[in-house]
C-alpha cells in the first residue's frame, strides 16, 4: 500500500515544526534571555560571575552621567526613523508612479532603481564613504566650487542628515518595488471612469491610486518604521560607533556592549537593557502605526 505523507494531517505540522524550532532557537530564546540578562551585570568575557542587579541598568539609562548620551541616542533614533519613513515613502511612491508608465525602458529603469538594495549595506556604506570622503572625494570637489570645505560625516550638523539620505537611497528601490506591485494591480477602468467624471491627475492619485494601494502603503510604512528604528549597519559603516551626532540606540548598545565608550569595561547587562528599551520602542510605535494604517485602509 502506498503512503502519501503529504496527505497526512501531521504533514503541515511537521513542516511548520522545523522552521519554528529554528526561529525559537535563534530568535525567541535569545530574546527572552536578553530580558533576563538586562537584569544582571553580565560582562563580555566568559567565566566572570554574573550578579543580579534588578532594574538598575534601566535606571542607569535614564539617569546619571549616561542620561545625556541615552537621550541623544533616543532623539537621533526617532528623528532618523521619522524622516526616513516619511521621505522614503513619498519618494518611493513617486518613483513607482513614474516607473509604472508604459515604456520600452521600464524593466531597465526599475532594475537601476532596485540596484542599491541588491548591493548590500556594507557596499553602499563604503561607496558613500568614498563619495563623501573629505580628502579627494567627489562631493568635496563640488562644495569647494563654492569656496567651502566640509567634513561631511564628521560634521555634527550634517552627519545624521547624510545618513538619512543614504538610507533612503539604499531603500527606495525596495519600497518602489512594493508600490509598483500595488499599482499594477489597480484596474485601468477605474482611471478611465475617473477621467470621464472629470478627475485631473491629482484627483486620480488622491481618490483612485492611494485608496487602491493602501495595503502596499501599510506594508511599506511599517517596514520603513521598523527597519529605521533598528538601523545599525549603515550608520556603523558611514560614521563609526563613536560619533555622538549619529548615535542611535542600536549603536549605543554596541558601544556599551563592546566597551568602546571609555571607562572601565564592557557591561553587556546594560547593553541588554538598552536592547529591551529599543524593542519596547519599536513595538509600541509599530503597533500604533499598524493600528492606524489598518483603520485608514478600511476608511479608504
Amino acid at each position: 500500500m502506498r503512503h502519501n505523507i503529504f496527505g497526512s494531517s501531521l504533514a503541515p505540522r511537521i513542516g511548520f515544526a522545523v522552521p519554528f524550532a529554528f526561529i525559537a532557537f535563534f530568535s525567541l530564546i535569545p530574546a527572552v534571555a536578553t530580558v533576563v540578562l538586562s537584569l544582571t551585570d553580565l560582562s563580555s568575557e566568559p567565566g566572570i560571575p554574573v550578579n543580579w542587579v534588578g532594574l538598575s541598568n534601566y535606571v542607569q539609562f535614564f539617569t546619571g552621567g549616561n542620561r545625556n548620551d541615552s537621550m541623544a541616542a533616543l532623539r537621533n533614533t526617532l528623528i532618523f526613523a521619522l524622516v526616513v519613513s516619511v521621505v522614503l515613502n513619498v519618494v518611493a511612491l513617486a518613483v513607482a508612479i513614474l516607473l509604472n508608465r508604459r515604456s520600452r525602458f521600464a524593466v531597465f529603469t526599475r532594475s537601476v532603481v532596485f540596484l542599491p538594495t541588491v548591493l548590500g549595506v556594507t557596499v553602499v556604506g563604503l561607496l558613500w564613504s568614498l563619495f563623501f570622503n573629505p580628502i579627494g572625494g567627489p562631493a568635496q570637489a563640488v562644495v569647494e566650487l563654492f569656496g567651502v570645505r566640509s567634513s561631511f560625516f564628521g560634521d555634527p550638523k550634517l552627519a545624521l542628515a547624510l545618513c538619512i539620505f543614504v538610507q533612503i537611497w539604499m531603500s527606495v528601490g525596495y519600497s518602489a518595488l512594493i508600490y509598483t506591485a500595488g499599482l499594477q494591480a489597480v484596474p485601468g477602468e477605474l482611471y478611465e471612469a475617473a477621467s470621464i467624471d472629470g478627475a485631473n491627475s491629482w484627483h486620480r492619485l488622491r481618490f483612485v491610486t492611494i485608496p487602491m494601494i493602501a495595503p502596499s502603503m501599510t506594508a511599506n510604512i511599517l517596514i520603513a518604521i521598523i527597519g529605521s528604528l533598528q538601523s545599525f549597519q549603515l550608520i556603523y559603516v558611514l560614521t563609526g560607533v563613536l560619533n555622538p551626532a549619529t548615535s542611535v540606540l542600536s549603536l549605543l548598545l554596541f558601544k556599551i556592549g563592546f566597551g568602546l565608550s571609555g571607562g572601565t569595561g564592557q557591561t553587556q547587562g546594560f547593553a541588554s537593557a538598552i536592547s529591551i528599551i529599543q524593542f519596547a520602542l519599536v513595538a509600541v510605535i509599530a503597533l500604533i502605526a499598524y493600528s492606524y494604517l489598518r483603520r485608514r485602509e478600511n476608511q479608504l
Partner: protein
Amino acid sequence: MSKRSLPIALAAILLGSVTVAGCSSSSGEGAAEKINVVLHDNPPTNKALITMTKVFEKENPSITVKISFIPIADWAATRTARLSAKQVDITEGVTGPGATPLPDYVKGAPQSVWMKGVEAGNWVDLSGQKMLDNFIPTVIAALKIEGKSYQVPTSLNYVNGVFYNKEIFAKVGVEVPKTWGSFKTVLAKIKAAKIIPISAGGKDNWPVGLIAIGAAQSLYPTLAEQQALDKGLWANTVKLNDEKNVQVVDRVNTIYQYIDPSFAGVDYSTAQGQFASGQAAMTVDGTWAASQFLATNPALKMGFFPLPVSDTAADNRLGGKIDFTFVVPSATKHKAAAIKWLDFFSQKSNYAAFATAGGIIPAQADVALSPALESVKPSLTGEFDLAWDQVFHSNANAGSNVGPVGFNYSGLSPVGALKGAQAAQDAAQTDWAAGLAK
C-alpha cells in the same frame, strides 16, 4: 510503519542528519597542535610577528600557529566573540588603569572586565616563567596583580609626539618648537605658507584624543600632579571645568584651528597619508606610527618632538604607555604550546628582531632602537613617564563628554557640536558629577 509514524521518522532522520553534519565540521583535527593567536591589526608589528612565527614553526614542527589580525574597529567585538567560542590560545591583555585593581579613592565604579576576569581565573598565571625576566622589571611590575603576572609585554610607546616634515619646516623657515608660544608661531607660519599645518583623523575619534592627552601631559607634567588630579576628580574637590582644565581644552581648540578644516570626517589612515605624502607639515601620533610613515614614503625626511602645550619647555615631555601585551586564556587546550610561542617571542634575539622590524620602543633592556625610530631618538630622555590616559581612571557611569581622558576633545567643535573649551568642559563636568557615587 503506520501512516502517522512515517512523517515523524522522516523528520527525525532529517534533524539527525543536520545534527551529525553540524558535529562533523568541528572534528578531524590532526595530531599536530594548532594555536590561535588573535591580535589587533598593526601592519609593522604584524609583519614582524609573522616572520618570527615562521621561524618558530620551523623549529617546532609539531606546532602550527594561526595569527589573526583584527581591524581596530572590530577588535573589541571580535576578541569577545573568539574568547566566548574558546577559539583563542593567545590574545591581548589590558594595560593602563584597567590593568590593575582600582585605587581606594575610586568609588562607585566597577572593576575593569580584565580585573574581573583575573579574579575569575580566566587567564593563565605566568608568574615564575623565565621569559618575564627578559623584560624591564618596572614594566613587569606595573602589570602585576597581587604579585602575580598574567601579561607578557610587547612594547612601549609614546603617545604625545608630533611628527614633522623637515623639508617643509626648512622651506617655511621654522625651527622645532619647544614651548606653546613658539608652537603657535610655527603653526601660523605654516598656515600662512598655504600648507596644512597638522593632519589628524577625527573620524576615528581616538587620534584627536592624542592631542588632548598631550595637552594634559604638558599642563600636568609630573606623575604626582596627574595622580592628584585623578584623585581630586573622584573626590569631587577638583572640577573638570576648573580654570586649568578648561585651559587644557582651550589649547586643544587652538590646535584644532590649524588642522585640515575637514579633519572631523577624515579617518586615521588618510590623515597618516596626508602627512607621509607631504600634504601636511605635522601630525600628532604615537611612536608606533614611525615605521608606517616610512613604509608609505621611504623618502620622507621626518623629525619628532613632544607636543609643546606648556609655556615651560621642560614640562613638554613625552608620555607613554605599555603597548599591547600577550595573555593566555585558561580555557586553552594548548597551554604548553602557547607558552612556548611566548617564550620564543621573549628570547633576546627574537625580541630584538621584532623590535627592529616592528618599529616599537623595546620593553626589554639593551635592545637597539629600530632604524624606523631614528627620528624619535633625540626626544628620548632615558626615563619613561606614563601618559595622562594611563593614570586617569575614567568612569563608565559618566557620559561621553568625559570619555577616556576627561578632557572633552570629542564634544569640542568641529569634532563635536560644543563651541569653545568652556562649553566642552562644562558638559564634561556635568556628566562627571552625575556619574559619581552619591
